[in-house]
């Protein structure tokens, strides 16, 4: 990231424009993101079912990426609120891969440790840990670990539901594990190495 000059710091400027940001996000996104094609029409912000809970609408976030506001953009809760409903993706007149850009921003925020609330990153990490241990997701383990840490107060209210799920046989008490766990581990280890080098 470029450094601030003294005079600009004295002048009260808080950030340096990082014009490589847009390109970086675009390159880290799966497929061809078309992020640079955004015309700021607001279709995404208008379509989003969760926009009211976001710091910035997706459109504003893209403008911030363009303006090189790295810290503000990565710190935004927008990418964490995204529910991956793909309404914006199919409506976007410029065919920007919006949902996938959100995934990229999550990853970048985790790497830079820039997130205001750790609930969502922790949930993702817990989920990933489960999958990396068993090869399958394990709802019981996931829910217990997650709720104890982030929503202890929600637990009493949820007991009937959890109880119902268990008695109706909809939640296993023990995780299922795939047969060739070592194979999956090798694949994921190699994939992580490749991620580092790219």
């Amino acid at each position, binding site marked *: 990231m470029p450094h601030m000059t003294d005079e600009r710091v004295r002048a009260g400027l808080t950030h340096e424009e990082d014009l490589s940001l847009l390109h970086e996000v675009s390159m880290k996104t799966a497929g061809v993101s078309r992020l640079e094609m955004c015309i700021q029409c607001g279709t995404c912000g208008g379509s989003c079912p969760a926009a009211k809970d976001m710091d910035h609408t997706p459109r504003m976030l893209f403008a911030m990426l363009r303006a090189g506001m790295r810290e503000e953009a990565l710190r935004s809760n927008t990418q964490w609120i995204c529910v991956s409903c793909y309404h914006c993706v*199919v409506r976007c007149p410029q065919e920007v891969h919006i949902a996938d850009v959100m995934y990229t921003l999550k990853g970048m925020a985790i790497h830079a440790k820039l997130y205001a609330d750790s609930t969502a990153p922790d949930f993702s990490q817990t989920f990933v840990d489960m999958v990396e241990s068993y090869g399958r997701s394990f709802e019981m383990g996931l829910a217990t670990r997650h709720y104890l840490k982030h929503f202890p107060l929600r637990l009493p209210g949820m007991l009937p539901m959890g109880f119902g799920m268990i008695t109706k046989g909809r939640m296993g008490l023990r995780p299922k594990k795939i047969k060739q766990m070592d194979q999956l581990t090798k694949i994921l280890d190699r994939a992580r190495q490749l991620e580092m080098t790219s």
Partner: protein
Amino acid sequence: MTERIGVYVCHCGSNIAGTVDVVDVANWAAEKLGHQGVVIARDYKFMCSSPGQELIEKDIKELGLTRVVVAACSPHLHEKTFRTAAKNAGLNPYLVELASIREQVSWVHSDKAVATAKSKAVVSGAVSRVIENAPLEEIKVPINPNTLVVGGGIAGIQAALEIANAGFRVYLVEREPSIGGHMAQFDKTFPTLDCSACILTPRMVEAGTHPNITLLTWSEVVNVAGYVGNFNVTIKKKARFINEELCTGCGICQEKCPKKVVDDVYEAGLGYRKAVYTPFAQAVPNFPVMDKENCTYFIKGTCKACEKFCPTNAIDFNQQDELINIDVGNIVLATGYDLFDARRVSNYGYGRLPNVFTSIEFERLSNAAGPTSGNIVLRDGKTVPKSVGIIHCVGSRDRNFNNYCSVICCMQGLKFAHLVHERTGATVYNFYIDMRTAYKTYDEFYQRVLEEGTLFVRGKVAEVTDAARYSNEKGKLIIQTEDTLAGKQRRIPVDMVILSSGLQPRHDAKEVGKMFGISCSTDGWFTERHPKLDPVATMTEGVFIVGCAQGPKDIPSSVAQGAAASARVLDKILQKEVALEPIKATINKEMCSGCRICNGLCPFNAIAFLADDNVSEINPALCQGCGTCVAACPAGAISGMGFSDEQIIAQIDGLLLRNLEPA
């Protein structure tokens, strides 16, 4: 090695010289191609300028040049210029070759050394080729003074009237029962708010009664043959089932017809017509048309109410489609546009939510002659809306539908806002991405609508829904969008939504283009000869395009184009004859073995087999010069003038530098 060749390398300002070392190219040509006959090689700032051309003319005269190569821009731009210069100096114009080092070199490459090297190869190819060029003579053919105008919208009417007023015959062909086009459906025209019918009807009547205009409505062109000056066109005149000689246009048949049908064309599906009908009161011509698909007599074999009541016995159930053959010298295509089908944007709910209307539906709704007599009401036919949302860019500027801007929708949206405000007093919202009001007095109209209190929201609407989330939304249509200027998502409940739909090429534009020998752009509009300097001509001589057939445009621009094309047509007619490129194939009868392979290859039936002599022969009037037969002849008996085997092989060798002086 008897030719004396001059090579001229153009700088084109810095367009070529900026990327190509033009001096080096000229010097190289003089040095390395001297043995081929290059006696002079020059570079000059602008070869196409008068001094540039004079340079060539002077060299031809003084140095006795027999061949000329100009390394400059694409032959499609200046081939004619330099050929004329050669002709002025007494050299056959077909002994001039252009080497394109601008479009094919300097504009597409950035490395100067590479571009210079490629330019040398291109010049070398042209030099080798020009040696093999043969002097050719243009073919002159007379021009038929009649003109065909296809499409009777305002652009076609304008073109037809201008040509007819100049004293020449025009055939005006229209697919629908009446001329008038889309403009006849509109209520008001932006930005002046003139009544559309009031300004259009006099033109329609003039075209309908003009002694020089033959009106062929309810007709379609089915075949076009020939070339500029001598087109032969076949037109299908669909059966009207009305004897035009006897019909007085009294309208009793429509009144008595018991069959009511939704009118998908003129009323845009919002109103009804009868099975026998004239689309609207001011239709030109005023004869009705029988809709065979819906007529009870044609379906069940009984009824004939129209026949019973017709006072002049003009109903003729036995009428058949008729093929008419005409000869014309020029063709003007004014085939117009289709409205974007808003049902494709399913998140706007058109077709599912009753009170979502398209722009053309709203035109009919606000038109005093429309189904509601001009009352702006909801689809129940009676409730006046208290709030209306107008959505711009529907189907336009959207890669899911059409990429381009449809030009008219912003102004159309503003016009609707004004009309709703004026007639209902409703709260009006306009939702736009960018407001495009770039034309004389257009932005002033935007100011006026702002003053009237229309609420503008910058944001492409995400969805229109009837799923109420809060109590104030019950029973309303909710427009959900991001107000991009406020940076917040908004949900705005309204009674009525109007979609300012874009324009798109006619669904059959591609086939029509093929019939007339012209091409369509990637978006599907007809392609003009030059986007700036030749906007109404096409690549096919004698075929012109006007109005929305060429691209989205408003009424003034359509009218201007109609007039422009008529000037081009009149220019051709007044020249009385036209020169055709002598690029034709010829058969050397001595060499022809009579195998007839070429006969089946020609799509223009230009090759005939002379059984008596056992040879084939090419009719130069029909030959279009594609050269397919030349390439196919196993005996090498066919030669293509202007593109002979010798010329092409010499060019290949030249491009590969096999012609350089041995070291």
